[in-house]
């Protein structure tokens, strides 16, 4: 019985040890995940903008643009964007 507990503990520790050892490597950097995520975000943004442009009318009124811009700036600053 004692033998089995030792063997079981070693097996569990081996798994968590492997996991811990692997976390020491910077996989995010290695697989360039941040770069891929940024690219996807940019592409999605462009895609949405295209859809909005096609389905809605774009208002280019300068007064409207500045007021919306100031609103967006306030929201972004408050949310640390």
């Amino acid at each position, binding site marked *: *019985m004692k*033998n*089995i507990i030792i*063997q*079981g503990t*070693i*097996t569990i520790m081996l*798994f968590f040890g*492997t*996991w*811990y050892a*692997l*976390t020491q*490597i*910077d*996989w*995010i950097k290695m*697989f360039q*995940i941040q770069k891929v995520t940024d690219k996807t975000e940019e592409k999605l943004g462009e895609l949405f903008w295209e859809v909005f442009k096609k389905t809605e009318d774009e208002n280019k009124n300068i007064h409207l643009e500045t007021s919306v811009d100031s609103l967006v700036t306030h929201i972004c600053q408050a949310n640390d964007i």
Partner: protein
Amino acid sequence: MIVTKKFNYEPGEHEAEKASSSYLMSLIAIVVGLPLPIINLIATLIFYISNRKSTYFVRWHCTQALLSQLSMLFINSFGFWWTVSIIFTDETITNKYIAYIIAAFIFNLTEFIATIYTAIQTRKGYHVEWWFYGTLTNILCRSKS
């Protein structure tokens, strides 16, 4: 990690085939139900239940196959639901996640190779005991005589 020992008695041809099938069952289930971690456990469980009244050699190997699948279920389920939460919720891919998936993959691969080896050996009539699972099976599965 894997020890080939002498069994209480010499298993017959029919017994060796059935014992080997219990490992094969889990291998086939891994291939068929790959993304879902529970499929191979269910397959080995069904095989185990249907062989409960079988000979000692067959019962022993069915139990070992089932136990090994049971521990893999914990590892794989955690990885599976972590992946699902990344896809469907706000969770993002982190270093910990990638490390976990790689560790789980290494353990699955080891188990996969060990299962193939054991399936071949038991088919030849050899008695193969795994590290930890073999000892655990010796406690759980006893000879009726």
